[in-house]
């Protein structure tokens, strides 16, 4: 399908719409389709005519903003200028189109492979593989002896007990996890076991509570401590993990 047809077929389609549809996959693709339309010999391209067609086409298709197409347009115009220079007498004349022809042939060869891949891909697409996979082995045991939901519920209780923050006052302070981590570490250095509420004793500011929660989860994850809740809704106990620290 050429770009022109596409332009006609797209209802109310403006130029930008066409670019998005990628009627051509690049300047070489467009150039090759022009050469085919004009039925000219790829080894003897009438460069002036093709260059003009190319420019007209990228304007029609709204491709004149695409650097790659502009670069090709410039290249074509340069070759056109070179073709106009008088050919040296007796010397070997190097056709300024040679490099372009080589690239076009290389591109054409690649398109042949694309056709083949497209055919094979379409055949394969029409066959389904097995998609049902039986339930896998159970996931490895969780690292915490406590579910996140339980911990969050505990946070919720602490927040409820705290002063009610005014509705419009969005938590303005960013979470400060490193500070919370420092507090937790300091407390654990003093005692091997502390309770969640004890950490929050000196502040129930929501951002501090959340920072502490994040800090606990991170320290638990790296194995510095263990978090434990003896029964639902009980206070959460935090224990220094000697093994984790040694590792």
């Amino acid at each position, binding site marked *: 399908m050429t770009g022109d047809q596409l332009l006609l077929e797209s209802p109310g389609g403006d130029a930008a719409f066409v670019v998005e549809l*990628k009627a051509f*996959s*690049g*300047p*070489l693709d467009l150039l090759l389709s022009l050469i085919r339309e004009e039925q000219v010999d790829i080894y003897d391209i009438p460069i002036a005519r093709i260059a003009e067609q190319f420019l007209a086409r990228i304007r029609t298709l709204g491709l004149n903003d695409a650097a*790659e197409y502009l670069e*090709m347009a410039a290249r074509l115009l340069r070759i056109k200028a070179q073709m106009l220079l008088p050919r040296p007498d007796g010397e070997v004349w190097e056709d300024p189109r040679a490099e372009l022809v*080589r*690239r076009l*042939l*290389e*591109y*054409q*060869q*690649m*398109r*042949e*492979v*694309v056709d*083949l*891949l*497209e055919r*094979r*891909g*379409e*055949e*394969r*697409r*029409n*066959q*389904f*593989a*097995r*998609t049902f*996979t*039986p339930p896998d082995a159970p996931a490895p045991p969780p690292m915490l002896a406590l579910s996140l939901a339980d911990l969050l519920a505990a946070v919720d209780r602490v927040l409820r007990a705290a002063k009610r923050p005014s509705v419009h006052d969005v938590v303005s302070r960013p979470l400060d996890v490193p500070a919370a981590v420092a507090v937790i570490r300091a407390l654990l250095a003093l005692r091997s076991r502390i309770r969640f509420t004890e950490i929050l004793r000196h502040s129930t500011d929501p951002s501090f509570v959340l920072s502490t929660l994040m800090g606990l989860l991170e320290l638990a994850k790296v194995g510095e401590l263990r978090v434990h809740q003896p029964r639902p809704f009980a206070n959460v106990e935090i224990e220094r993990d000697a093994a984790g620290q040694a590792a």
Partner: protein
Amino acid sequence: MTPLAKLLEAALFASPRPISLAELAELDPEAPLAAVTAALEELREHYNVDGHGVELVELGGGWQILTRAEYTEAIERAQLAARPQRLSAAALETLAIVAYRQPIGRAEIEEIRGVNVGGVLKSLHERGLVDVVGRAEGLGRPLLYGTTPQFLEHFALRHLQELPRADELAIALRSAEPAGVE
């Protein structure tokens, strides 16, 4: 069916990916490789002769059971499974170049296609169709790309050699061999 063919069928049925001959042979450590090959042939015959909705196909360096193409439309219409999206022209062009010139760097692909391929390479990499296979010498040591087993699967190729050699294509260029074939 022979017990070995049944065992192979069970394993092939359970797998969403092709299984290599070596892996199939692991299923029964007693069975010689020739027996495994014979059992595969038996299974393929059975599906063909007996008339099944599925068939046994060799692709992507292994064996896989696939549904027959004639049922695809009905299955899709009933919304029981969906065909994957087609690859874009840009993706196909890039894959064709990588397949024939691997290992190949991004700059060289762009030289052939005449456009920037950064985004296409990234999405091909994410889909597992190409992978980084090394680094080139020289300035900046650019990454080199090659095709993956999933590439073969996607195009139902048994191996890369199944693609025509460069000099067998209608437009034969320089005598470039499909380089770096795995």
